[in-house]
């Protein structure tokens, strides 16, 4: 009943033996404190930004209760995706099975919330007690007029990346290409894959696409509407943003629909420009390419002019970079743009290729963070004494105890950092963080030692 793991294309990747390489193929040891997450979490990261559908978690309260509405993926329309919906599996369900409860829940949610579709997430406990989520979804779908889509992602299947991939499979099998109406290719249209509109990142990029005459079919899945996703196969190009975990999806779309794909990133001036140029090239439109080359040059100049003041303040600062997965290598060049040196860098959930790419971009003298636990992270900070830390929110409060400026680049942040506008916001925020007067107060000894009273 589980997604066939060989389908997930893990087997053709040998484990990267480099120190600090993400342990994608390795299991976390019990008790070692790796602080990673599970397949269910990975699936919800990818699917839950779809705005006008209901997301029902068939599991005990620990799965949905501790986690609903906790990511910064934003919507321009429906807020239905932010609802926490769960069957809240209880003791009796464990004993007698939860299938009846699940089916009734699906029907009730369809009636009350009027979703465009319902995604049903299997979890460790529902899988263990043998609930056939696929079957129940088929049965419920037969009684309803909307798709009911099962996502087989019990946490014990592995870490977040596997969940990401499972979600990609689900989109490919059950959503993309299911639209009624025309299947005709839409010229100059793209899908942005792996863009979740965290803090409105997507909206920072849309104006540039629009100015160039490129049409966004859909993001997968930031601010995505279900119907747009169903027509995702009509796009002329897939652009895989930063993350590798949805590579399978774009490969399969290439085979079935003939949609080529490129990789790109909208973090930092250089990467944004390069991505826009690559899109224009891949869309194979000379006019567009000419327009793009002129456009990015102008935008680069404007942006560099705007951030010049910030760069002066940040230049030669020493940073530690530690990311969850996406945007690792992209962040390296973003920091370089501001003249910031990276003392040490690491990543937890990236693919080995992304990791290698980050490593190549970094100064050879920079240290790779090998121990990715909180303790390892703190040890590096104590050793390196950086001027600033750029990392995911998970380590934020720990980093604050070291009294070092910290910028959250993960899903907990409030501001968008993508595109040219995002680069300005990033530079502005980073400067505010690094130059905040509070760090001085935090480092001042009190009461002062004798002899230092008059300072």
């Amino acid at each position: 009943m589980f997604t066939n793991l060989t389908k997930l294309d893990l087997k053709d990747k040998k484990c990267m033996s480099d120190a600090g390489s993400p342990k994608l193929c390795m299991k976390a040891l019990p008790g070692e404190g790796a602080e990673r997450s599970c397949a269910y979490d990975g699936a919800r990261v990818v699917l839950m930004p779809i705005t006008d559908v209901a997301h029902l978690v068939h599991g005990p309260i620990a799965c949905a209760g501790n986690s609903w509405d906790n990511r910064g993926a934003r919507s321009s329309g429906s807020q239905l995706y932010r609802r926490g919906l769960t069957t809240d599996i209880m003791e009796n369900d464990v004993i007698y099975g939860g299938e009846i409860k699940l089916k009734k829940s699906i029907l009730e949610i369809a009636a009350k919330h009027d979703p465009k579709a319902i995604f049903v997430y299997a979890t460790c406990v529902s899988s263990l007690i043998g609930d056939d989520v696929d079957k129940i979804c088929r049965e419920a779908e037969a009684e309803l007029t909307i798709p009911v889509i099962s996502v087989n992602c019990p946490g014990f299947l592995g870490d977040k990346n596997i969940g990401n991939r499972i979600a990609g499979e689900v989109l490919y099998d059950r959503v993309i290409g299911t639209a009624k109406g025309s299947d005709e290719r839409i010229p100059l249209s793209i899908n942005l894959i792996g863009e979740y509109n965290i803090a409105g990142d997507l909206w920072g990029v849309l104006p540039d696409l629009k100015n160039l005459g490129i049409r966004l079919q859909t993001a997968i899945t930031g601010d995505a509407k279900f119907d747009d996703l169903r027509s995702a196969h009509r796009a002329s190009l897939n652009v895989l943003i930063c993350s590798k975990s949805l590579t399978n999806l774009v490969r399969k779309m290439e085979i079935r629909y003939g949609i080529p794909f490129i990789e790109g990133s909208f973090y930092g001036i250089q990467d944004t420009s390069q991505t826009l140029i690559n899109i224009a090239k891949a869309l194979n439109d000379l006019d567009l390419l000419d327009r793009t080359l002129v456009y990015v040059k102008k935008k680069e100049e404007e942006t560099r002019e705007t951030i010049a003041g910030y760069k002066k303040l940040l230049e030669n600062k020493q940073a530690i970079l530690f990311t969850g997965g996406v945007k690792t290598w992209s962040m390296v060049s973003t920091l370089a743009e501001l003249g910031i040196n990276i003392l040490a860098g690491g990543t937890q959930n990236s693919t080995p290729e992304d990791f290698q790419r980050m490593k190549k971009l970094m100064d050879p003298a920079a240290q790779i963070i090998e121990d990715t636990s909180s303790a390892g992270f703190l040890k590096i900070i104590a050793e390196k004494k950086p001027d600033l830390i750029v990392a995911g929110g998970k380590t934020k409060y720990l980093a604050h105890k070291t009294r070092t400026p910290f910028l959250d680049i993960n899903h907990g942040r409030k501001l968008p950092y993508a595109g040219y506008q995002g680069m300005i916001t990033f530079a502005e925020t980073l400067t505010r963080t690094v130059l905040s007067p509070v760090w001085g107060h935090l480092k001042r000894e009190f009461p002062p030692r004798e002899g230092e009273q008059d300072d």
Partner: protein
Amino acid sequence: MTKQRHYDGNPQKNSPALGATLAFLGVNGLLALLHGSQGCSSFIRLQLSRHYKEPIPLNSTALLEESVIFGGWDHLKKGIAVAADKYKPQIIGVMSSGLTETYGDDMVSALVSLRTERPDLEDLPVVLASTPDYIGSMQEGYQRTVESLLMTLAGQPNKAKVLRRVDSDEAPSVALLPGCHLTPGDVDELKEIVNSFGYKVITVPDLSISLDGHAELEAAPVVQGGTLLEEFQRLPECKACFSFGLSMEKAGEFLKKTYGIPHFNIPSLTGLTATDKFLLTLAKVSGKTIPERLLRQRSRLLDTLADYHDQLGGHQIAIALEMDLLYSLGSCLVEVGSEISVALSASQGSGNTLALPFSVEVGDLETLEESAAHCDLIIANSNGRQAAGVLKVPHLRAGLPVFDRAGYPQKRWIGYEGTQQFLFDTLNLLG
């Protein structure tokens, strides 16, 4: 009301294992180990971290597919051993998850078996808390874990240390068992109040010195601050025990039965009469009079009640919270003339026998949204923001998680001064 729906919509429940984590976080030198898959601990870390704005040390046995087939018993043994060797904690606290309880890992036999294989771990205290998801919410997980902490650690002599001599002129100790409805700020205030009656206190667990958000912290994945292991050993010397919140009654009764310590359960510390009762009990037990400072605070509260009686009275208020907090805040509001027209608890609670001044149902925040349209105020955790937004009703944040208002973990809503603050916070939202 019988449950109309088969699903939970916008649950206000947190997992019992999250409650267990919270209790463990109040014990110094403890390493918390969740027996489950990695997501279980990841979600708890995130949830507690965005509430407290603190790093949350929580380890995991990281179960994968094969452990689901063959059981996680060996994983648990390995997890305890690895954690003990790698991080050298003073205590290990283990809690179970829905996954491991469903396939029925026996944690006790795993520990016995490990200690046979590893005699060097014989003296390392390991606290086992059974916290499957179906027992309720955060409150139930916290409650069970405090009980396990007391049963495992109270009075156990630490072989490494010589037993402490008790000086005869030393202030007598009392044990405080705060429920999870009290913030670190509340617990701090509570300790001060009890101190002012001439007592030393042993607080189990003590979040006021671990999760109070102070700037000093070492790079260690174990709890820093909180109840000391030697304080657990000294619990039998306590002259009295006070448990706070109905859910803590059983833990207090355990100390009473095992060590003959007089036990008093204080269901609420918020509100005039609740505080009156507590201080009268303290005065009686200690033989001391109520300190002048507290009487002054009482007189200020009385004046506030008079000044604002009109604004406080006649409001319709909807509350959705964990049972003990719901009881505390709800009874305080009834006492000043408000009406609790909707009261939804996250779980059944501990089958309370108290006559509540309003009726309570178990419910989620979708139920709150369906039933609170006529109310003047919603009191719920931050997740209540969806209901409050749809209904356009002001929303007072309380409970856990509170992630979109500053300073909740530092709030003091207990005692006379805290009650006054709670009423001010309420009034400022009622407009």
